[in-house]
């Protein structure tokens, strides 16, 4: 689908003309794309915890807390424990493996 | 390779889905519809069936069926039957029309259990058969989760007569009666099946002549709503009578129609 986009080759031409390596461009893309799947998985969390889970307000921040702690909390909520109001309904929508990824994502913010 | 095949298949299925748009084709794949069509070769594309393409509440999906066709004693649409092929009972509702209606257009609200194609089959008095279809995707919106409330009792008939009725001109009539339309297929809170309790028919008469008979099946929504046309030549009395199956109980509403 992207192959017929005319700008793609033109863009590379322009970048090359300025002496920027096409390889560096490709690298920066793949680096971004590695995070992209986790960003999408974690996207909804920002709705109550702020961008990157870092907002400390009426809802607690989750960024930078240890991954084990976050994972344990999420699993607890998923099982309906720990007196959740809404987090049981949220955590229940993810597999255990997805919850692990979420915990690691926010631990590294 | 496998991936490519899948992509092709997907593209093909999208194309096919696009081609199957609501012209009534595919009717012969369903027994109930085939039976309603009978031996005739039906005409597609003339009967119109309007339903929302996506419904967020399958318990009451608006349905409108119409056709540009004479409604004279010599040639009129005498029946329109509706089928939901993926419902537990494919029969939805049957309208038996007369020339006194003046226009072959009817509406109701019906239950659509899951995403599917619904069909309408119309017969004219001169033997023509028309088929139409409508694809409906049913999905319960996330914010729409509701909880059960009170059960409706049989009663409270409502009729909205036509505004500015002129002699022989079709005027819109809307009717509603409260009734649970319990299908006998649904579990109550205690896990037991709730007993079936249905309205069988709505019969509309004008000065003693039958204008319209509606036969209801389990797919007619709670508190049945019917909209149709009447074209009286004179002022007179209209009677609307709903009859419950089993009990035979009736609820009746009378109304004077005055030509303006």
């Amino acid at each position: 689908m992207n192959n017929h986009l005319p700008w793609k080759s033109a863009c590379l031409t322009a970048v090359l003309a300025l002496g920027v390596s096409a390889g560096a461009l490709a690298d920066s893309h793949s680096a971004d794309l590695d995070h992209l799947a986790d960003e999408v998985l974690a996207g909804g969390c920002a709705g109550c915890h702020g961008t990157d889970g870092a907002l400390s307000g009426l809802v607690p921040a989750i960024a930078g807390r240890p991954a084990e702690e976050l994972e344990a909390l999420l699993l607890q909520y998923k099982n309906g424990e720990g007196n959740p109001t809404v987090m049981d309904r949220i955590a229940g929508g993810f597999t255990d493996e997805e919850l692990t990824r979420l915990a690691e994502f926010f631990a590294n913010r | 390779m496998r991936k490519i095949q899948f992509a092709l298949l997907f593209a093909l299925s999208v194309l096919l889905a696009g081609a199957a748009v609501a012209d009534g084709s595919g009717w012969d794949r369903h027994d109930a519809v085939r039976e309603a069509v009978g031996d005739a070769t039906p005409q597609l594309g003339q009967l119109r069936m309007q339903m929302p393409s996506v419904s967020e509440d399958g318990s009451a999906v608006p349905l409108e069926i119409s056709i540009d066709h004479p409604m004279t004693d010599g040639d009129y649409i005498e029946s329109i039957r509706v089928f939901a092929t993926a419902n537990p009972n494919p029969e939805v509702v049957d309208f038996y029309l007369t020339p006194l209606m003046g226009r072959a257009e009817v509406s109701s609200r019906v239950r659509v259990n899951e995403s599917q194609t619904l069909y309408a089959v119309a017969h004219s008095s001169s033997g023509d058969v028309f088929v139409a279809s409508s694809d409906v995707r049913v999905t319960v919106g996330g914010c729409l989760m509701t909880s059960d409330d009170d059960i409706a009792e049989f009663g409270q008939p409502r009729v909205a007569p036509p505004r500015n009725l002129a002699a022989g001109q079709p005027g819109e009539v809307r009717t509603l009666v409260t009734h649970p339309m319990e299908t006998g297929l649904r579990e109550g809170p205690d896990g037991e099946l709730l007993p079936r309790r249905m309205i069988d028919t709505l019969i509309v008469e004008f000065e003693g002549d039958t204008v319209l008979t509606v036969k209801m099946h389990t797919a007619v929504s709670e508190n049945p709503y019917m909209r149709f046309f009447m074209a009286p030549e004179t002022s007179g009395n209209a009677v609307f009578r709903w009859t419950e199956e089993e009990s035979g109980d009736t609820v009746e509403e009378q109304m004077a129609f005055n030509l303006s």
Partner: protein
Amino acid sequence: MSNDKKNLGAVSRRSLIKGLGAASVLPMVSACGTMTGRGSADARVVVIGGGFGGATAAKYLKRGNPNLDVTLVEPAEVFYTCPFSNLYLGGIREMNEIAHNYDELKDVYGVQVIHQLAQDVDPVAHTVTLGDGTTLIYDKLVMSPGIDFRWNEIEGYDQAAPQYAPHAWQAGEQTRLLRRQLEGMDDGGVFVLVAPDNPFRCPPGPYERASMVAHYFSQHKPNSKVLILDAKDNFSKQGLFTAGWNEFYGNRIEWVGLSGDGRVMRVDAVRREVETEFGTLHQADVLNVVPPQKAGMIAERAGVTDDSGWVPVNPATFAATMADDIYVVGDATIAAPMPKSGFSASSQGKVAAAAIIAEVAGETPPPAYFTNTCYSLIAPDYGISVAAIYKTDSSGEVEVTSSGLSPAEADRSTRALEAQYARGWYEAIAQDTWGTRY
């Protein structure tokens, strides 16, 4: 990702554009001034609409790839949210507390913001025409156009009617007008709220509004009533709302559903009179009509709406099914089972942004996940919610992996906590969308 990195990206892009100058191999259009060259950017992305869906998409496009040239088109310099506008009607929040601007998008993320109305889209030429005649070229277009109203679908509710009988379903001057009318109403009056059939923006919204108006009445006009005339027999969180109303407002709120002759067919906005399907007349002292809706006008101009008036999309990417390189998010889309809510729009904006970033890089978009939580306040310290998680399955359809309501039986402290979390949600999503800090 640090801010430095983003700014660096923006600076280098600007200098590259300068460096390339007229020698650029890329087409530029300059109808009335604004030039939109791609320069060295990976792609030019235009975003129409600065609400929850559009502002979020613009931000997450730049976060994910600072080398995208992102232009946001939004007529308003100050954006008022529909969420929490009911709290303003209830007298527990002011307009400046639901107001947001585009400073963070411009200054921190390097989004170009143009305060114009998008008037036309040419999906073949890949151009957007603005109110001042400027033409923008896009490689990818994101539209978050919100809703428009189906004028006269309720007879008499035309474009002139809202000045007498406000809809207040797009926040701003309409919301202020409705509050002024409520404040000007004599005690003992009737507030009539006309609620539409599905689908419409914010399914619990009319019922939260009824709650907040009843709260205002309980404080200031104790003999006044709320009458909801509804074109539906069921509504969002009905059991929870009904229980809450009984607890706080008794018979101050009356709801009449479709089967009880609640569907309004005709409105006389000047006389504040409505007529229902079966001919019942209701006289209101303040009349609030939430009319039937459709996708925002620009979606229709772009040719991406179907005969339902809404926009069909591929739920895995929120690409419009009826045009290439156009993504539509938010209330304008057919996204059920996701509701038309600000949270859904934000979630969809992130999925569309990720899909664009991946596609520009020649990669497959990542699997889509969506979240929605709709909080509603029945009283200032009594909140309820419905929440759900959605994924696209292998066939590309949306599946609901979890969903649920607040419990029917809960003590006051749980409801108070949910009311607090409702405010926390607003604070967080406003920060995530516009960078607003409270």
